[in-house]
């Protein structure tokens, strides 16, 4: 299974999609990110794991500037994230994000959720935006729910809408912030299947998750973070079978034990 996926998926090229160098962030006195260096190639699929409070969510939220880093440099698709609002908007247009709690807009229908940003940010005609939205809703297998409101859907369906909503902006990079953590167990698979599909099409993905099966199947690289640092990173096979650091071994033993 994992082998076939790996052969279908394009190998990450040398082109750099995201480059973080010596990124630091503090919440007040608390040092959340302690000099992160990370380079993500186009088409690469990265899974970030680590204990809670290790800074993994903060790290990916820095990539689309939901959080501001205070030192170091983040370059996304050739655009550096600074206080320049133009740059921030440019990066956000091209980086999709999926949240743990879906964050769909409850006052809009599923279809309107998907067409809002293309219409207002990309200035796309409504008909075209709806056509694209339906295409992606089909892809996440809920086109029949298009005219419902998010509150009428199950968690798994909502998360798939959230993925479709991001895809409608044709992002170059997708960030996933614990996309399955708020879901009931029986709904995790339907969301992961969509994500695996995306990975197979060559989407550049950074995914914070504890779904180790997913990491084995689709990741090119698994990163282990602890206390604001990248402790270890490796190909999934090596990472799981042959962890180097003690902290990684401890974490894996805890997470894989149950």
């Amino acid at each position, binding site marked *: 299974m994992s082998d076939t996926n790996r052969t279908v998926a394009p190998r990450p090229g040398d082109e750099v999609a995201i480059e973080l160098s010596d990124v630091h962030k503090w919440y007040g006195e608390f040092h959340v990110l302690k000099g992160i260096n990370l380079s993500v190639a186009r088409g690469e699929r990265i899974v970030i794991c680590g204990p809670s409070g290790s800074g993994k969510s903060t790290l990916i939220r820095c990539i*689309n*500037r*939901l959080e501001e880093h205070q030192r170091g440099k983040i370059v996304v698709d050739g655009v550096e994230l600074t206080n320049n609002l133009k740059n921030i*908007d440019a990066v*956000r*247009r091209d*980086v*999709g*994000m999926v*949240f743990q*709690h879906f*964050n*769909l*807009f*409850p*006052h809009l*229908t599923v279809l309107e959720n998907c067409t*809002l*940003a293309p219409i*207002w*940010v990309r200035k796309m005609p409504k008909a075209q935006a709806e056509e694209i939205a339906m295409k992606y809703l089909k892809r996440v297998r809920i086109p029949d729910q298009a005219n*419902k*409101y*998010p*509150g*009428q859907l199950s968690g798994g369906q909502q998360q798939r809408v*959230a993925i479709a*909503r*991001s895809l409608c*902006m044709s992002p170059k990079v997708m960030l996933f912030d614990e996309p399955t953590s708020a879901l009931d167990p029986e709904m995790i698979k339907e969301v992961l299947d969509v994500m695996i599909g995306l990975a197979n099409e060559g989407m550049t993905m950074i995914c914070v998750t504890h779904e180790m099966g997913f990491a084995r199947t689709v990741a090119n690289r698994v990163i282990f973070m602890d206390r604001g640092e990248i402790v270890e990173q490796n190909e999934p096979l090596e990472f799981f079978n042959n962890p180097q650091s003690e902290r990684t071994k401890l974490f894996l033993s805890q997470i894989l034990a149950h």
Partner: protein
Amino acid sequence: MADNLSIQGHATVSDSPSPAEMVKPPALALGPLGWVRANLFNNWFNSILTILILWLAYKVIPPLLDWLVFNSVLPGEGVTNQTCRASGGACWAFIHEKYRLILFGLYPYEEQWRPILVVLLIIGLLGLSCNRNFWRPWLLGVWAAGGIVVATLMWGGILGLPFVPNTLWGGLPLTLILSVVGLVVAFPLSIMLALGRRSDLPIVKSLCVTYIELIRGVPLITVLFMASVMFPLFLPTGVTIDKLLRAQIGLILFASAYLAEVIRGGLQAIPKGQYEAADSLGLSYWQKTGKIILPQALSITIPPLVNTFIGFFKDTSLVIIIGLFDLMSASKAALTDPAWRGFYKESYMFVAFIYFIFCFFMSKYSQWLEVQLHRGHKR
């Protein structure tokens, strides 16, 4: 077994609940007697309360009906103030005599068809705006056109209409103009103030906070007095601003501060995730605010918003203290006629009834709107 089968068969055909749920409630709880027993006499304390209330109603309602209806004097041939004074009931003849003054104040008698049209036009515009299907940009155009027509009708001076200075305006049209213009201007202003108060820009934020706290910290009467008495002192000599306009500005300043705090409450109730989702999609601040945050914030603040609207509508009656003849002041003016002095009860009831109709409609409409806006996405 056969019985069992037939019951089940019956149940599936008629689609009624299963036999277990079809047990009837005990007879005591049924019928009007059961209701009275369960709700009015279910224990000794409630029984005493019920009897007490019945006794009070017996004491209050018959005399009230006597005054309102049975002994009241209706307008008719030969009915004068003397007839009214002779009877012990309400003098509706007084209202008949004075309703033009109460409704239209000092507006020239022959021209009062104009304020009638204005009132109808404003009610029509409000009615039109109640329909959600009309919440489109063109509605603003309709309102602008309506405003021009209202101004033309009230002032006149063109199209062969005699000019009527706004010092002669009064009664219901004045109350409606003050309230509607007040809210139409104050509402967008209050949204800006509420957003400004939550802004990251320190100057904008402190300006908004200062404004809101300052205006909210003083009584409306003070704001009106300042607008009417103190404000002209700051103007260069020779420049005067119309008294009505000054009152209108005072009302707008006051309403916007209150509404801003109501709206800020709604803004605070929107989860952080909504902002983040909008940001991550690349929406600009104004797109995010206009498309995501405000629609949700305003829809959850409908109850307190309408509360403030209703309060504001009634507060316009305070313009009496700076000498404007709104509905309330006009009704007091009607009482100054020596022939009809003393019929204040009738006068105030009439005015209260008019206020009530408008306020009750606002309240009912807001309840309907709440249901409309929450339909579908209720969790």
